[in-house]
């Protein structure tokens, strides 16, 4: 291990160190604020640690980890989301009587898992990150034990994700059996007699990730867990976990040769199309905003993985760029909504304020919030002036460049259906305010502070800015083959292994 390699994984080291120190801190003195601020500063430090890490791109740290631009970008994204999550959680938990220090430990553990996942270049690392992430998420979902829903949500997540991950592990075992290689980079189709085994393994691995990305038909857990989990945890689930899973899926797809296979692409595309349609259909009449976001996330992940169905080497870079841009935009919009919801809810409330019909007439009562939410929803719906449109536009370009007509059709139909429920919410926000005050608890109260408004406003501004001048970000996202080791090529794609 040289210094360079330490620098390359400095963020992760910082996080791990921070976790240890958190435990010490808890042992030393239990304080609501102290731990929160410590966590935040740790994450900030980890974020800053990416600057030196930038110098070490394309360096392998042990066979397990490989640092490249793509993973660094996503790590930055993940850590920023975490930062927001911590801050939101602080506001959310502050109101409770008891101390919630462990919560932050779990949170950091989850993020560490996500980061490892993003960096992983080896089944073992994938496995570690994956489990670290899911187990600590289970802990956080079930965290507010006084609510009855959290228990249910936590248990569902535990059982299902455990099942899913064991399925994935079985897949890894099969692949290992077929190829004799645990590292992603060197896996090549192995001996003929184990072909079937290898294929089965790949499918099982795909199942594992589809579960985490909540793609149809492995999506069933999503709405329940989103609804049952405390709002900040839902936020983590919707942003950090999704981003990490997308990253590792991309790695499998583009870095590992055995995934470079047409049959799998067909499977993936069909999964994507199913998710777009079913996700939007399920959300159509949903009144609970948390569940609705869960369903829409199903659809959005469906849109997103279109970028993996690329057919030719030269479109890889563009596809990656589009993918990263899209998930970024998706996360931005989701953050706005979830920050608002988290701000309006309290840890010791019976449940979170998650019925969007309570938002009626918000634009006239609280114009700033109303505007932010409307723009976030528009961005999710992919309407111009918002970044969501640019994201969708990029996806269209990728899909068309690779001539995925089925996906395009589903994309159009899906967003057609999607418009209905996004617009319903928007019109509800625009409607005349209800006469009785009691209906509008969701529009007031909670742990909402001016800082929530500011952050929401800032994010909204970013959304608009990206929507009008996408280049300010898009030109920064460079995923040429020199920045990321891609062995993907169409020749292999077509070849039958």
């Amino acid at each position, binding site marked *: 291990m040289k210094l360079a390699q330490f620098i390359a994984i400095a963020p992760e080291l910082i996080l791990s160190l921070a976790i240890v120190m958190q435990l010490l801190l808890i042992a030393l003195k239990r304080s609501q604020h102290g731990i929160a601020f410590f966590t935040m500063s740790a994450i900030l430090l980890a974020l800053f640690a990416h600057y030196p890490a930038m110098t070490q791109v394309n360096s392998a740290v042990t066979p397990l980890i490989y640092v490249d631009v793509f993973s660094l970008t996503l790590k930055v994204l993940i850590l920023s989301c975490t930062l927001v999550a911590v801050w939101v959680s602080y506001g959310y938990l502050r109101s409770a009587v008891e101390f919630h220090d462990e919560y932050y430990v779990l949170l950091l553990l989850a993020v560490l898992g996500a980061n490892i996942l993003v960096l992983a270049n080896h089944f073992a690392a994938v496995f570690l990150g994956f489990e670290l992430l899911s187990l600590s998420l289970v802990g956080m979902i079930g965290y507010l034990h006084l609510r009855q829903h959290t228990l249910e949500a936590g248990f569902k997540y535990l059982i299902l994700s455990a099942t899913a991950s064991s399925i994935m592990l079985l897949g890894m075992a099969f692949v290992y059996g077929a190829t004799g290689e645990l590292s992603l980079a060197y896996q090549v189709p192995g001996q003929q007699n184990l072909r079937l085994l290898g294929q089965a393994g790949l499918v099982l691995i795909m199942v594992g990730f589809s579960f985490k990305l909540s793609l149809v038909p492995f999506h*069933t857990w999503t709405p329940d867990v989103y609804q049952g989990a405390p709002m900040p945890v839902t936020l983590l689930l919707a942003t950090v976990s999704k981003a990490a899973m997308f990253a590792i899926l991309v790695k499998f797809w583009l870095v590992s040769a055995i995934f470079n296979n047409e049959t799998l692409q067909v499977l993936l595309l069909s999964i994507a199309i199913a998710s777009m349609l079913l996700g939007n259909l*399920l959300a159509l009449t949903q009144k609970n905003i948390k569940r609705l976001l869960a369903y829409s996330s199903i659809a959005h992940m469906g849109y997103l993985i279109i970028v993996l169905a690329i057919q030719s080497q030269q479109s890889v870079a563009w596809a990656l760029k589009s993918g990263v841009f899209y998930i970024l935009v998706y996360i931005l919009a989701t953050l706005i909504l979830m920050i608002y919801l988290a701000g309006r809810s309290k840890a010791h409330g019976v449940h979170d304020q998650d019925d969007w019909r309570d938002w009626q007439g918000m634009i006239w009562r609280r114009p700033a919030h109303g505007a932010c939410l409307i723009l976030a929803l528009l961005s999710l719906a992919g309407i111009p002036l918002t970044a969501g449109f640019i994201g969708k536009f990029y996806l269209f370009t990728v899909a068309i460049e690779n001539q995925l007509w089925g996906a395009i059709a589903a994309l159009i139909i899906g967003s057609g259906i999607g418009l209905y429920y996004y617009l319903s919410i928007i019109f509800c926000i625009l409607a005349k305010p209800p006469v009785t005050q009691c209906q509008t608890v969701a529009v007031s109260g909670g742990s909402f502070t001016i800082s929530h408004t500011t952050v929401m406003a800032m994010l909204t501004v970013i959304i608009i800015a990206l929507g009008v001048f996408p280049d300010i970000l898009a030109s920064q996202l460079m995923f040429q083959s020199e920045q990321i080791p891609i062995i993907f090529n169409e020749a292999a794609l077509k070849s039958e292994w």
Partner: protein
Amino acid sequence: MTALTLLPFFPLFSFLILIIFSKRLNWQLATVIALSGVGLSFLASVLLINDLYAVSQSSDISAGVRESLWTWFMLGEHEVQVAFFLDPLSAVMIAVVTGVGWLIHGFAAAYMREDENYSRFMAYMNLFICAMLILVLADNLVLLYLGWEGVGLCSFLLIGFWYQEPGNAIAARKAFIVTRIGDTLLALGLFYLFLETNTLNIQEILAQQDSSPLSSEAAWWIALLLLGGAVGKSAQLPLHTWLPDAMAGPTPVSALIHAATMVTAGVYLIARMQGVYLQAPDILNLVAWTGSLTLLIAGIAALAQEDIKRVLAYSTMSQIGYMMLGLGAGANVAAITHLMTHAFFKALLFLTAGAIILAAHHQQNIFHMGGLLKRMPLISILFVIGIAALIAFPGTSGFVSKEAIIGQLWQSPTAGPAFWWMAILGAFITSLYSFRLVFITFFGQYRGQHELHPQRHFLLLVPLCMLAVLAILGGYIPTNLEQVFVAVDAPDSQSPSWLHSVAIGLPLVAIVVAYVIYFPRANATEPVPGKGSLYRFSRNGLGFDATYDALLVKPFVKLAKLNRHDAIDLLVQLISWNAFTWNSAAKAIQSGRLRWYAATLGIGTIILLLGVML
């Protein structure tokens, strides 16, 4: 900007003044403005006609004065101009329109005096005159179409002038829409004409007929479509049903629009486009048929009317039928002359009828009149003069024109003896219903409820007298129309000598018949006897209205109302409904049962595995 171009604008200006200051003008002022508007254009047209004659005397070529104002729009290379053209034909028309129009305006001023919307009424009348002048002076067919539609709109406005009575409104709408059908045919004719000749300028089209005539098929269609327009406007079969209902309007309106001027526009159009019709003899024959059938049917219907104005309306139809017949038979000059004379005597009839109605407190049923000869002798005399002209009593203007038409029928290439007989029969019926009217209205005792209050306003009487004079002498007004029309060479086969005497005699015989039948019943308050089905059938205009109603109007309305919620929209709603059903179906997946979720996980895995294996 000479008198010709100014001609239509005098009434337009007076219209504008009247409509803008409508309520603020008192009766005198409004009258002065309205009358001066039309009067000026009358004077102008007299001057113009003199000039025209001067020109035509000096040179034997068919002279015409053309004044162009501006280019309206371009059809490809062809400029559609706003331009006026005056030749003997349009000269006759403008003389009639402005002259008779002026007199009728005068009468109307007295007739409508009490009405609260008096100046609005006069404004509409002026606007009508303007539109009518544009129609007859137009040098291209598009501008003619403008006038054509303009008079239609004015007629709509004036029929429905007392808009608060639903009946009037319906009559107005009916008149507008039925004529609109004709207008559409006319428009199609224009399109076809433009396609063939690449111009819509009337003189150019007619000139082309000498050099490069239309193909017979094209001419056939174009002539037919133009005829369609003509029958709509001129209330000929089969688009005649609007005219009797149009009597809902104030009587001066009936006199001006539905007797003297607008309804003759169709005749004018066909006469104008004679060059095209000559290329399509079948259609000329059809014109003759249209005219003859109309004049018979209208005459029969007139026999059974109880409303004095409806009698006159049907007689108008039949008289225009004569004009059509004349055009069809190639007796253009006679037809146009009859147009002129008819304008005189029919205006006279309507106005006198109006005077009677006014005196009788808007009682229009002839069976509640009677004995008027004693009570308002002057009016009665004038009315009878009109009737005399109507039945072509020798020495009246009607005699001159109608005999001229009938005389040419027998040996016309496009008509023939059959038409002659129909015309004669028509003449017989004409005098029959005329004198039925006369006997029942003017003889016997007065049978009305209210006491008569004859008006004596000079504006009421002067126009009547002048019209009476015209009705007698109008036939001798020189119109050198001969230069306008291509003379149809008649075969030299000699027509039998008894024709003429029969043509003169039969109407007189009819008077006697009418005397025998109707005079005894001069005191009847009921149209007895024969109040049978036949009578009712003919009173209802031989059931045309009922037929159209059942065949066209009702189905259309039903169809429209049936689909008022737009079947296509249901399709759209089906889609959305579909989405929602799928939504509720998909919700079943989210049962919230953990073990079911795990099962979906397993099922999904198996499906994928199978997918990759197979």
